[in-house]
């Protein structure tokens, strides 16, 4: 069968279909290489889902066990800052998506600009996070030896109603607010670590994009980094309502 022998012959002259220098020899076409890359990236993201999933599960369980502590602890978080940060992160993701488009249509200048905008908004997110963490530090709401339960045992009086703004907790339950803050710092901290790693990769990608590495048909690094960046976005889309908005009207 001449057809069979043509397939199994290890003849290298067959490879006229190779167009880009980044094309690896063991892939038959560019598309196959690209799909294999996307597949691998998604497998990595699945391990990330499991990783964050463990944290989300811990949150789910302790929220149900110590709901009375989670509500006033959650209401210590700054909703306007959290909402603004959500918008900032979505904006960063939007520019990342535009960056993938710019690489696809081979516009080097636009790609570099979009990657820089992605970086700026990502850094802005971390800046807001710093302001929020600093406030927790000053109020002794970081779990550990210097954690203060006073605000949960004796909630500040609301000036409008003349009553406490939150339901006062007994000392035992007030101690459980530490679990909320432990999860808050664990989850947002792990999310922030992913952002810091992403920002480092972005700077590397910007330098390579400036050299024109990704605007001559080889889009895979931009595309796969985009997948990572959007995944980090998605984690925050869940963190924001789950941590900041548990119960905004506890006394109604």
């Amino acid at each position, binding site marked *: 069968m001449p*057809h069979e022998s*043509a*397939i*199994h012959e290890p003849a290298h002259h*067959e490879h*006229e*279909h190779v167009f880009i220098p980044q094309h690896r020899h063991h892939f*038959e*076409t560019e*598309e*196959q290489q*690209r*799909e294999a890359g*996307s*597949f691998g990236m*998604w*497998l990595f*993201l*699945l391990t990330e*889902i*499991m990783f964050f*999933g463990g944290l*989300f*599960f811990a949150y*789910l*369980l302790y929220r149900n066990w110590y709901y009375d502590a989670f509500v006033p602890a959650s209401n210590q978080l700054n*909703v306007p800052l959290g*909402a603004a940060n*959500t*918008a900032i992160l*979505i*904006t960063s*993701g*939007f520019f*990342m*998506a*535009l960056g*993938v*488009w710019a690489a*696809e*249509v081979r516009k080097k200048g636009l790609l570099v600009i979009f990657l820089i905008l992605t970086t700026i908004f990502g850094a802005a997110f971390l800046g807001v996070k710093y302001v929020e963490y600093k406030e927790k530090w000053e109020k002794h709401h970081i779990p550990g030896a210097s954690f203060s339960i006073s605000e949960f045992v004796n909630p500040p009086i609301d000036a409008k109603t003349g009553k406490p703004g939150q339901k006062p907790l007994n000392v035992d339950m007030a101690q459980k607010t530490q679990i909320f803050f432990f999860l808050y710092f664990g989850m947002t901290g792990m999310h922030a670590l992913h952002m810091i790693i992403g920002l480092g990769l972005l700077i590397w990608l910007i330098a390579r994009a400036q050299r024109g590495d990704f605007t001559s048909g080889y889009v895979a690094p931009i*595309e796969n980094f*985009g*997948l990572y960046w*959007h*995944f980090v*976005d*998605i984690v925050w*889309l*869940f963190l*924001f*309502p*789950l941590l900041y*908005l*548990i*119960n*905004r*009207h506890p006394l*109604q």
Partner: protein
Amino acid sequence: MAHDASQHYHDPPNITNPEHAEHHIVTPLQYGYVYIALLIGTLLTVLAADQNFGIFNPVIALGIACTKAVIVILFFMHVKYQSNLIKLTVICGFFTFIVLITMTLLDYISRAWGLW
């Protein structure tokens, strides 16, 4: 290439599969719509949290978050335009995640069964 191009490949059916042939590029306009949808979703989350829907508050919050996540996955992450292999991979990931959450929760729920 004078004759059938498929015989140049080691695995022709994989290459000639029409699903692999085209590569879709999402336009900036589509990304713009997605961006606006995500911002509206964020606004809705905050507004809904200020209303008292009782036990439905977390349900609504998670519903909006899941909707936003699906939009990001389908369009920003291009899954809508990917091959069935990628689609199946993504679905398997979330399915496995749900299985793990459910099984672990079942354990916690059933440990003290009848003792509360």
